[in-house]
């Protein structure tokens, strides 16, 4: 990555640079932040990315469509299921296939479970970054239950690859419904514990209220979506605006706040966990019968043209843009990743605050670096 030439003028000699390097306990993933400080105050932040750039978009140009799905797993690896769903939906839309109801409902349930476990991991790491180390263990303890459900049905805990164009790889395990229902019952009792530990804590309020404000106009201009954007008042939930899979038949609220500070971003994600549980409860009892996959041709070729599909991952709007020229490999695939836009706003909102606040703001943006680098 090209280094910016640092020119020191007499005024800038007061500033000094600190490197929150690629290896750091609070930048989750390989992100390098070059922070220019004056005393304790942050003047500017330059993020340096590219440490985990794998050339996914270039690789996709030489892979077939079912193979692309396995690459999307590894981009935003915490919302792996939702990434897979994006590519599958795009391919199915291009081929104009009708997907049976059973597949749609199962995909929705899996997506919501993914969202819950992503927010659980976020909560665990956020608490840990702020110093409440116990939060880490509680969050991960509960996430294990979801990962066990994934492992039983999909075969993998984090990298699931459960979707494929035309449906699912295998049918759900017979225990699936019971385990999900038990989990919901358990987690409804546990989630208030999270509030007791962190949300209601005075120290926590002092660390997060009023810190890192993002206005609605800036959120739209920077393209910040997901809970981060919704906490600033930007209504961007793809599940509401362009419903896909089974989202058009479930009732849920879109969580919107107006303050746009770290605390609202925090509460937005906690509320989203409640909403996800509501969605799952509406669907889990009535999974329609039917096939778990539609018969597809062995070699999938998309018609010539451009196809764009948006989904709502745990972090924001993921867009999959496929330009096809009629072959079995796409001509160009572009992944519009939510974390890429979310990172660009870090310099704007963290300038003027202290180093400790930078850690809190970075944690509340909930960045996953391989999604930025692709």
């Amino acid at each position, binding site marked *: 990555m090209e280094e910016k030439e640092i020119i020191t003028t007499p005024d800038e000699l007061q500033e000094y640079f600190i490197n929150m390097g690629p290896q750091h306990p609070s930048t989750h993933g390989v992100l390098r932040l070059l922070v220019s400080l004056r005393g304790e105050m942050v003047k500017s932040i330059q993020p340096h990315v590219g440490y985990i750039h794998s050339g996914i978009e270039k690789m996709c140009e030489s892979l077939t469509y079912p193979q692309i799905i396995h690459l999307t797993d590894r981009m935003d690896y915490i919302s792996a299921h939702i990434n897979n769903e994006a590519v599958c939906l795009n391919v199915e839309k291009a081929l104009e296939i009708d997907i049976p109801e059973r597949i749609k409902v199962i995909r929705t349930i899996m997506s919501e479970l993914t969202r819950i476990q992503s927010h659980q991991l976020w909560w665990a790491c956020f608490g840990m970054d702020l110093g409440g180390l116990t939060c880490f263990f509680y969050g991960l303890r509960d996430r294990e239950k979801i990962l066990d459900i994934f492992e039983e049905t999909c075969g993998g805990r984090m990298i699931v690859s459960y979707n494929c164009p035309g449906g699912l790889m295998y049918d759900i395990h017979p225990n699936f419904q019971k385990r999900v229902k038990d989990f919901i019952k358990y987690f409804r009792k546990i989630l208030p514990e999270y509030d007791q530990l962190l949300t209601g804590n005075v120290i926590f309020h002092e660390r997060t209220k009023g810190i890192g404000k993002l206005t609605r106009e800036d959120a739209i201009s920077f393209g910040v*979506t997901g809970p981060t954007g919704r906490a600033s008042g930007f209504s*961007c939930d793809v599940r509401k605006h362009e419903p896909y899979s089974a989202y058009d038949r479930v009732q849920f609220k879109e969580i919107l706040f107006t303050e746009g500070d770290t605390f609202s971003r925090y509460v937005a994600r906690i509320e989203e966990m409640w909403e996800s549980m509501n969605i799952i409860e509406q669907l889990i009892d009535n999974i329609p019968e039917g096939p778990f996959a539609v018969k597809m041709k062995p070699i999938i070729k998309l018609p010539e043209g*451009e196809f764009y599909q948006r989904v709502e991952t745990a972090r924001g709007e993921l867009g999959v843009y496929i330009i096809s020229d009629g072959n079995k490999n796409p001509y160009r695939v572009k992944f519009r990743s939510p974390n*890429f836009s979310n990172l660009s706003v870090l310099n704007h909102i963290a300038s003027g605050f202290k180093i400790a606040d930078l850690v809190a703001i970075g944690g509340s943006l909930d960045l996953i670096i391989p999604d930025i680098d692709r």
Partner: protein
Amino acid sequence: MDKTQLGDFIRSIAQNPEIKEGKQYLEVTVHPSGLYQLARQLKEKEEAQFDFLFCLSGIDYGADLGVIYHLRSTVYDHTVVLKTRTSDRQNPLLDSVTDIWQTAEFHEREVYDLLGIKFKNHPDLRRLFLDNSWGFPLRKDYVDDVNIVTK
């Protein structure tokens, strides 16, 4: 506005746009010289208000290099796709839209990094992922014997 109304509106504000109704969105292709003006009009005009640039992709058409902008309005909820292309492969130069949509800053850096397209008036045009000695990987004529295995 639906696709036909959008088409008429854009014809009225742009010079020689090529408008095509794609399966999903309305696709507008303009010459690079008219891109910045059109983009600014699309953002500021009362009937359009395309304030959300949600995808900026660079593409190598084989002979030309191009950039594709996906725009949406949060007010009216209509979407349009803006395309432009240049045939200068040695020194492609386009206008930057960073002062219209701030998200373009990082996205244009990525396009410069992977395809080599430079943007005028960009506040900080540096490579994003790769270092200076690397070529431009997303180009179709990119050859790398060490890292890419071809049959």
